[in-house]
């Protein structure tokens, strides 16, 4: 039997990091456990993006703690306080930073720290601390939903650009930006972020979408795991951006099979990131995926991942208009013909 690993080169580079294959575990709560991170490496992940550190969450939790202590203090003579003195300091980001170090010790693959800030100071401070903690790269998870009608799209984009510039200026490790799909001009935003110094663009973030509980008449947070059909939107934009930005492109969302990985590569992604597939099928699915990828590439006589990267990007296909608006009309027509 032929050992495909010896004949097919799965390696890729992302953010200047040499990766043994394009399968990256994306940011998820699974990464909170060092054991899981180790299992991911064992199963074949070439890098892990840790769960996000949310500055706002830290601030809220610290504020709640402060409020609880203060509002139960000084109430009456017998009980000047209700809670004991804290034995140690609130760890805030320290727990996360310690986790980076633990992951680095536990595995040999690159560890990408993920950050969601609320203040410019917070972004910069935590980015620096993540670098010091040993992260190989940063992923800025700009999970920002503008609901204020007075904030223009341009202002939102400028906020992203300023942020990336500032963080890139403050750290030496590469910085990727994870984006949502809701921009009027994705290509333009991508170029601006590229110019701002982002080493990578991660497409696309998946946002929590609140659901309704009809019995309680309450809005409940909800996150549905990704479906393979979500891949298409990502493929589309990676194919469009490939070659037009210097930044490495990463595809995240909707990767559930080896062929999804192949498509991601062909569109122009350096890596394919996944969480839902691992949640559904277990971390060991990475191993299966890796094998299936090799088999597919063997069957289709591909020598390396690099060979296929961008091979079906907008610039590389014979009909680039397939990625443009006309395509939509064609799809509709094909529906009506059924």
């Amino acid at each position: 039997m032929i050992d495909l690993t010896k004949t097919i080169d799965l390696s890729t580079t992302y953010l200047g990091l040499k990766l043994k294959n394009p399968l990256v575990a994306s940011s998820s709560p699974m990464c909170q456990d060092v054991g899981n991170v180790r299992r991911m490496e064992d199963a074949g992940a070439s890098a892990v993006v840790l769960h996000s550190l949310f500055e706002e969450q830290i601030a809220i939790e610290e504020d709640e703690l402060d409020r609880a202590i203060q509002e139960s203090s000084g109430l009456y003579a017998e009980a000047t306080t209700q809670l004991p003195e804290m034995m140690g300091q609130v760890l805030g980001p320290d727990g996360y930073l310690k986790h980076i170090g633990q992951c680095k010790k536990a595995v040999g693959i690159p560890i990408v720290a993920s950050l969601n800030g609320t203040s410019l100071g917070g972004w910069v401070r935590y980015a620096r601390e993540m670098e010091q903690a040993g992260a190989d790269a940063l992923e800025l998870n700009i999970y920002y939903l503008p609901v204020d009608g007075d904030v223009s799209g341009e202002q939102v984009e400028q906020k992203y650009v300023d942020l990336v510039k500032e963080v890139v200026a403050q750290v030496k490790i590469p910085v990727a930006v994870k984006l949502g799909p809701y921009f009027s001009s994705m290509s333009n935003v991508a170029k601006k972020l590229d110019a701002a110094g982002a080493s990578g663009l991660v497409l696309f973030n998946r946002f929590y979408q609140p659901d309704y509980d009809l019995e309680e008449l309450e809005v409940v947070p909800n996150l549905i795991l990704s479906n393979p059909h979500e891949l298409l939107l990502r493929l589309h934009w990676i194919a469009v951006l490939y070659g037009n930005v210097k930044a490495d492109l990463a595809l995240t969302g909707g990767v559930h099979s080896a062929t999804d990985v192949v498509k991601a590569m062909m569109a122009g992604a350096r890596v394919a990131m996944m969480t839902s597939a691992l949640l559904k099928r277990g971390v060991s699915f990475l191993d299966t995926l890796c094998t299936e990828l090799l088999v597919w590439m063997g069957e289709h006589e591909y020598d390396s991942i690099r060979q296929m990267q961008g091979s079906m990007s907008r610039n590389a296909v014979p009909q680039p208009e397939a990625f443009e608006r006309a395509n939509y009309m064609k799809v509709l027509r094909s529906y009506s013909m059924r």
Partner: protein
Amino acid sequence: MTNSSTTRPKVTIDGNEAAAYVAHKINEVIAIYPITPSSNMGEWADQWSAEGKTNIWGTVPTVVEMQSEGGAAGALHGALQAGSLSTTFTASQGLLLMIPNMFKIAGELTPTVFHIAARTVAAQALSIFGDHSDVMAARSTGFAMLSSNSVQEVMDFALISQAASLESRIPFLHFFDGFRTSHEVAKVEELTVEDLKAMIDDGLVRAHRARALTPDSPVIRGTAQNPDVFFQAREAVNSFYAAVPTIVQQQMDKFAGLTGRQYNLFDYVGAPDADRIIVMMGSGAEVAHETVEHLAARGEKIGLLKVRLYRPFDIEKFVAAIPASVKTIAVLDRCKEPGATGEPLYCDVITALVEMGVSKKVVGGRYGLSSKEFTPAMVKAVYDGLLKETPRNHFTVGIRDDVTFTSIDFDPAFSTEEPGAVRALFYGLGADGTVGANKNSIKIIGEETPNFAQGYFVYDSKKSGSITTSHLRFGPRPIHSSYLISKANFIACHQFVFLEKLDMLKAAECGATFLLNSPYGPAEVWDRLPLPVQQTIIGKKLKFYVIDGNEVAKKTGMGGRINTIMQTCFFAISGVLPREEAIAAIKYSIQKTYGKRGESVVQKNFAAVDATLDQLFEVQVPEAVSSTIQLRPVVPAAAPGFVQNFTARIIAGEGDDLPVSAMPIDGTFPSATAQWEKRNIALDIPVWDEQLCIQCGKCVLVCPHSVIRAKVYDDSYLAGAPSTFKAVPARWKDMKEKKYTLQVAPEDCTGCTLCVEVCPVKSKSEVRHKALNMAPQLPLRDSEAANWDFFLNIPDTDRRPLSMSQVKDIQLLQPLFEFSGACTGCGETPYLKLLTQLFGDRTMIANATGCSSIYGANLPTTPYCTNGDGRGPSWSNSLFEDNAEFGLGMRLAVDKQNEYARELVWRMASALGENLAKGILEADQSSEAGIFEQRERVRQLREKLAALDTVESRDLASLADSLVKKSVWIVGGDGWAYDIGYGGLDHVMASGRNVNILVLDTEVYSNTGGQASKATPRAAVAKFAAGGKPVGKKDLAMMAAMYGTVYVARIAMGSSDMHTVKAFLEAEAWDGPSIIIAYSHCIAHGYDLAMGLDQQKAAVNSGYWPLFRYNPALVAQGRNPFQLDSKAPTIALKDYIYNETRYTMLAKSNPEEAKRLLVLAEGDVASRWKLYSDMAAMSGNGAEKK
């Protein structure tokens, strides 16, 4: 060795911390139990050990919390016998519980020091405040007694007493005044480890160890002795006591050599040729010291003799310390010994003089009981009294005794305050951080300037909406002023609403500064001030500043926390420090205080400080008043005479002016007085949407303060209703033709929002709109107050046809517990209210000391009230530890009276009428209707008895009410039930008697400040378990169930109100002991209590708090008495516990340990659930098969 006083660090701490600092450094085993005002000493010791701080020998002292002070004394005795250096901290009843062991410890010549924050022993009432009645009650134990008068002395004497105890082998009580010294924050010189090492002789420590019990060299101690030798053995210790004064003086001298502070057994201050002196001890001596210096400088021939070593009392040294010129002596005692020839110190002084053959005129006086203010004016009055030819003996000072005329008059205007000192008063709201910020301010001034500093903090008696007053003094000279500030040159009001409640500018000196936190700016504020405030500002020429602290707080993300903002204003205006330096110091103290809570908290506070000064404005005070706003009346005009003449005076802060004649002689007070307080503390109150409401009654059930009420009534009562009064058709099948009103008491509501949270109805067109919605109180206050008054005059719904097991019907039962001072959103009070709704007209409550006794009966008012017939709960508090027994005693008396009354009815049946007698004796009182009928029979009985003038008839008349069923309830918290009172509780449960026990389980000692009890769950932090409680909660419910004869229920109203109601009804119906353990959310859990009911639900859903009932009545039916009433866990334990700061504190600061404890706690839940579900699955005793 050092003897330079300038090399030691200066620290700004309170007396408790000073004592604990030394005690922790020179002991090995510390046994503690919380009791106000000494709890903080134990808390410090526990915290330091948990932090790994070592004693002078480099090892971390072991600190153990016991189940009572008796337990602490026992453990301490054992530790001493086994050779460890051991100590404890206590006060009041706690010290009394230690007395049996103290006799033993002293009898065995065992060196130890007990540090006592001296507190009043409960008599006609409990008091948490300071006097010497506790230490005086322990003076026959054989302990030496050393008195500290100030925070510095507390630190110094804590060490001297330990050194002297080791050398003399006599145990010491080191005491200082509760609150006045234990809680006074002052700048003191900290003793160094070298000082401690120099004073504690390791040879004596080893000698103590060598006397220890050990099987390696066994001896027997603690024998029983007989008449032949006990007496002689008791006398064998005499030489040791005789040596104590010399040893103490030597240690004091040695201490002086180290620190430069010379103390003596008796210290004299004043004119060397004085003709009048006062002899006293405690913080009052500081006041006398200040007064003597002031008056002696003006030529008065007066002096003060401070007693340091009170036991053994060295009569030679005492007499030698009195100047020969002295002619008259006033001995002041801070206690009362009714019936004695005089108070203890007075008697000792007389004896000393007589034995030494010295003739002086001596009078005794009492002062300062229960922290009654003791001021220079009072001291002067005592000296002035001694000028009289026949000075008053056995006098009192500080009160007006218009009954037995013991009191001497004093001139309140007399003052000895230093002209150059800063005297600042701050009025804040409990929880707004004012006290904490002021403590920081004192530290800043104490540590950043050469000034001496003093802070003392006064709280009102409520747990919600309480007003705090901070008294701060700073100045270049040492501060002896152990009394409140009555002449302030700086006054800050941190809450605008106080202006209409309090005359806070009364204490302002002419030209003082007034800082107001005001929503109105400098241009607008003047017209918003009440008239008397304007008058004072103009009259006293006050400098007036405003800041909108709440707005600054809001903008900087501080929410309602205005503390650092107001602190910044104080420093900016007062000029105690240059502005820049002050800001830097405030930021440093913010970092120190809040650093552990996270960087974002620190940054937010910094931002608040930086944003403050731009918003601080001086107000140009007009020359004339313009306001028409008056201070609000203290109580409504409709309040009864007692409330007007007595209660209102206390509410107005004039309690000190009430004379003895105004006092109930035996501690008995009328109930139903909380209704007159009208505290107006809610910013927002619930507003009823009568169209949306489904009349379910859940809001009425959960309201902790009984401010939402419902009535169903005839249409006719609506005549004359105020225009905004709401009424809708009642949604009851059999009362359809009647009207229903849900009414809020706007002036009594605390704004907790529990009612809104529990309301199950949401608008179909806008789901955030419920049948109850919060709205600002002020615009609604007057109209809703009128509606409330109208509502109260509508007759209550007839109880008899109502179903007691339906929440919907229970809302119509009048609560006989209303408007308590419990915390906003309290989790305990809804249960008590329900109890009074169901059985209040026949309930006798025995209440353990704790939160429920404080909000139940802390003056000025009580929430327990009466129904239209004048019936309601009787209530009393005996002690903390004896409540179950106390309640059992009530049951025994009621049962005995009932038995005797029945015997009399039987005996007198022919005279009373056979039918009536039979009716009375065979009455079924298991229902409301049955009780109503029995009351009617008793009424007829009374009529008949009135016509019969026999011994028996008079006896029966005095006992007739006992023929109506009485429901005895024994109420208390988990500290009582799980810990200190458990022995009694257990015995009462075993008694078989018909008592009902309600345990309000907050899982900590809430009233004394959140110390761990055996009810504290694993993984939660609490004081004395700061690193997370390592062991699981005691399953009191299951322990009780194991009796088989006790009705047991574990309930959580937030999870199932029906289950709660059922448990109360079944417990009361069971003719035997019943115990209900009620989950009570609490501020000590650390979350917004508006979510309290959701948290209760989560506690049950996670399996942490399974609901169950164990009903022995089911045994007779052949059924399994154990009924598990909640479902198997549906959420993870962490989804319940990590909503609460008591758990997240650990998870955030020590995640590994939190995780370890979480796993164990999950195991607790799983194993308990298995046990319960297995028990629930068991079949009954088989009787059903027959």
